[in-house]
């Protein structure tokens, strides 16, 4: 009998060890950030392509040329309501005190400097493949923005989703970091893939999710329904009959081919995309038009 209890105890310990091993917060390879010279001017393009300001300015605040990334916008979901944090350069309320590697762990691994998992309302699964140079450039640009003293709002998330360690398991299941489109035949398509799949994180809204909130990558960019936002259209050629020129002009001006104009969250995206070089909008259009 004593032997049996010992066995159960050993198995439980083993189970716990496996759980804590597979759910441990990951870290980037800090060596890939050694010796990089940050370029804040290029970081501004990365910032707009990644759409950081759309979620991290205060509710209803204008973005303008120097957005104040005070946080506070609410993002309702099936798992609770998330509040965007302050990512201004304030050393206490914001992220001004973070090193490049801490910033990279947050953006690419979804892990805080204190080693806690972030919720995937923050699109770190998309951002995982940002190049180290783009990442340090982005941080350098964000360090030039105004500091804000607003404290972060706690997320309104009930048990079991409030147990953050379990997010390690979620990341294991849905944090796949392979490219969705594996074949890119031209440099423009490769750039477009980087902008759509990584920086632009388009799939986070335009791709449907499963019951646990993981992206259904087999239905890539075929449309979804978002709490608080409603139906999000599919943007693959089989869902949307727009030419690459139509797509690029929409991202520049907000005008659809029939001269309706973008609304809701997509108006924020257009606001960001209109600030990018024209070649980048063309690359996005080429990639989207190349999808099945």
């Amino acid at each position: 009998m004593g032997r049996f209890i010992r066995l159960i105890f050993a198995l439980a310990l083993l189970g716990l060890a496996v759980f804590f091993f597979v759910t441990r917060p990951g870290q980037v390879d800090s060596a890939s950030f050694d010796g990089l010279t940050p370029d804040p001017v290029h970081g501004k393009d990365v910032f707009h392509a990644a759409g950081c300001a759309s979620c991290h300015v205060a509710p209803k605040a204008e973005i303008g040329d120097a957005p104040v990334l005070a946080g506070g916008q609410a993002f309702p979901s099936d798992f609770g309501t998330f509040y965007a944090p302050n990512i201004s350069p304030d050393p206490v309320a914001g992220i001004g005190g973070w090193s490049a590697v801490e910033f990279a762990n947050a953006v690419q691994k979804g892990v805080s400097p204190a080693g806690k998992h972030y919720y995937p309302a923050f699109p770190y699964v998309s951002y995982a493949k940002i190049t180290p140079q783009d990442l340090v450039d982005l941080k350098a640009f964000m360090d030039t923005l105004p500091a804000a003293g607003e404290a972060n709002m706690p997320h309104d998330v009930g048990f079991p989703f409030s147990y953050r360690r379990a997010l390690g398991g979620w990341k294991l299941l849905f944090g796949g970091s392979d490219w969705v489109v594996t074949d890119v035949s031209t440099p423009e398509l490769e750039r477009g893939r980087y902008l759509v799949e990584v920086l632009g994180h388009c799939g986070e809204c335009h791709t449907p999710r499963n019951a646990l909130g993981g992206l259904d990558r087999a239905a890539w960019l075929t449309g979804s329904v978002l709490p608080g936002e409603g139906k999000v259209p599919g943007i693959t050629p089989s869902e949307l009959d727009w030419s690459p020129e139509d797509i690029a002009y929409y991202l520049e001006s907000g005008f659809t081919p029939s001269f309706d104009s973008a609304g809701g969250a997509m108006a924020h995206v257009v606001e960001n995309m209109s600030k990018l070089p024209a070649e980048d909008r063309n690359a996005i259009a080429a990639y989207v038009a190349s999808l099945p």
Partner: protein
Amino acid sequence: MANKLLTSLTLMASMTAGAAFAGGHIEGAIKARQGQMQLYAHYLGILGGMARGNADYDAAAAQAAADNLLAVASLNAGSLWPQGSDMDSAEGTRAKAAIWENFPDVGAKSMALTSAAANMATAAGTDLDALRAAMGDLGGTCGACHKAYRGR
């Protein structure tokens, strides 16, 4: 005295117009304002076709489209937006209830559109580069209102 009474009665009447029109007139107002949006889209389509290079630049046609766009943007559209014609209260509209809770902001965004349309009326007949620049500002004013006040 009588004049003053008449003025305040008129004011009250227009303030309660939403309530008075409730019913079939809500539907009419929604259709009418969507018609105004269609007119915007039509004239923007003429200007945008030239801006995008899908149509040859034609100064006279551009000027006519821009003048009409400005005329449509200059309508007093108050009666097109009665109380109770938001997407939560009426069918066939994506107008968020927030419009009726933020009148000063809605008014400012509407003024920005009229001002961008006036700039287009100055630019459209000048040359293609001027038209293109004015088109960008116009798009921004459309998006500013749709971002905040149009649902899905």
